[in-house]
């Protein structure tokens, strides 16, 4: 039964995740779950079962120095810079981690300086609600939806569309789709006052032949 589910749903699921996981398709296994296998493997090794508080204190990864202290894309504000104090207070995004130097690569949102390397103590992670809408990326918008599904305003939706038109990163596709679902949209509907009926229609109308430029930025 489970295998039959797999046959029927794998395509759908693959499509459902294509926008976001294009780059990870090598990691997308053909998934089956045998109940017996699940039972047999249901007790993961202790290393996989960690109480978070314990894990945090007792299971620090051995390669922690190689891991970026912030997720890429995190919006930060520069602070405490001695060599370039004029940059303090500027906003930027973490775009990389130089493990050898122990410094973050931060792309600045404004100003003539495009990128700077700073130590982690020299950045403050900014709350999405503190960001100006024009500075938000799709991840910031997603974070707003985590607080409340109704927190996205039409201005956020416009920013979303701007990101969709200009983004070159297909990874943003999933974020965009979630935000599209969390926004309210206006759509055209039809009203027929002559009939006095509640029915709206007809729905279809003639081809218009408009020369629209298309921005299908979500790559699949």
């Amino acid at each position, binding site marked *: 039964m489970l295998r039959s589910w797999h046959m029927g749903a794998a395509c759908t699921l693959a499509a459902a995740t294509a926008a976001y996981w294009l780059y990870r398709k090598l990691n997308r296994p053909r998934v*089956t779950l045998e109940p017996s296998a699940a039972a047999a493997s249901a007790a993961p090794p202790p290393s996989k079962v960690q109480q978070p508080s314990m894990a945090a204190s007792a299971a620090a990864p051995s390669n922690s120095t190689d891991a970026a202290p912030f997720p890429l894309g995190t919006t930060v504000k520069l602070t405490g810079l001695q060599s370039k104090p004029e940059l303090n207070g500027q906003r930027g995004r973490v775009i990389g981690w130089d493990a050898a130097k122990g410094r973050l690569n931060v792309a600045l949102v404004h100003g003539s300086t495009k990128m700077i390397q700073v130590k982690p103590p020299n950045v403050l992670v900014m709350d999405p609600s503190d960001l100006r809408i024009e500075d938000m990326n799709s991840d910031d918008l997603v974070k707003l939806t985590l607080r409340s599904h109704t927190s996205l305003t039409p201005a956020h939706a416009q920013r979303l569309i701007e990101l969709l038109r200009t983004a070159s990163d297909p990874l943003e596709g999933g974020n965009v789709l979630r935000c599209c679902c969390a926004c309210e949209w206006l*759509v055209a509907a039809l009203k027929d006052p002559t009939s006095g009926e509640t029915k709206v229609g007809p729905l279809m109308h003639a081809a218009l032949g408009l020369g629209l430029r298309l921005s299908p930025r979500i790559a699949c």
Partner: protein
Amino acid sequence: MRPSGSDCDSHLGLHADCLPHQLSDDQVMTSDCMLIASECAPPQVEPFKHTSLGLGLLLSTSTERCVQLSAVSPPPSQGVTRLAVKIAGRALFAPSALEALVKDGVKFIGLDGEVATAGPVAESAELALLSEVHFPSIMHMSSALELEEGLAALAGALPALRAPPGDPRHMYQSKVTSAITKPLSAFAQHTFFCFNASKDPNSILPITALHDGASFMLLYTCEIILEQARKVLDDLGAFQSTGLVPSGPFPATYLVPALTTEGTSHAGIHINEFVPGIDDGYKLVGLQKTDVVRLMEAASGVAV
């Protein structure tokens, strides 16, 4: 006056009244009304036909833009006027609604298309779009949002669902179940995502976390949410393998077999746990396996 959700509720017994132009004197109606209206007679939105892409659904962020978009097409018949209808994305992209649109020939969803009426402006018009290939993704995302909104209701119903015969709360079980029909259905039909700890690419072993001394499977309503939790879990040492720990879909129909098969040590599930910044109402932590069974049974209409 703009109608409220309760105004719409009053029309529930008369489906024909659940339509935009009877609900609102102005040209915009509220989304909660549309949620009801969309169930009465979907779809009521007006698709747009593009010469090469075919029929599409144009979404706007402002009434003005919506009116501008609709103004470029001739009225379908005399006397017919247009409304700008406000609708929540999760309702518009709900599988039933979007599938109905697809059935009617909709091939793409355009966002804030700057449709010009004629001439050189048309050359600069631009339309950001979601094509058919994105429809399955956006339907799943819509379902995920609906489930997240229903998790609090599911949690609130559990005391009544747990009540044994003789317990005063037992008599409310049927009422409770009927009150949470939509969240129950969303839960039972959803495809969750999980981090896969299995080294075998042909199997899936959700990563678990200890909670009150027991092991709970970590499930997420969608991959976007799962990715939000990745960094937190990584910091907690949940991933000891090098490289990106894969994730995979985990349909709700797997839950009961995975939790109740003999030899299984899972005590239950966490939904959307370890997601930084998420509202408590959008997650469900420590759902016991017996509660999962109850919810699935309630969803299938089997007596609890």
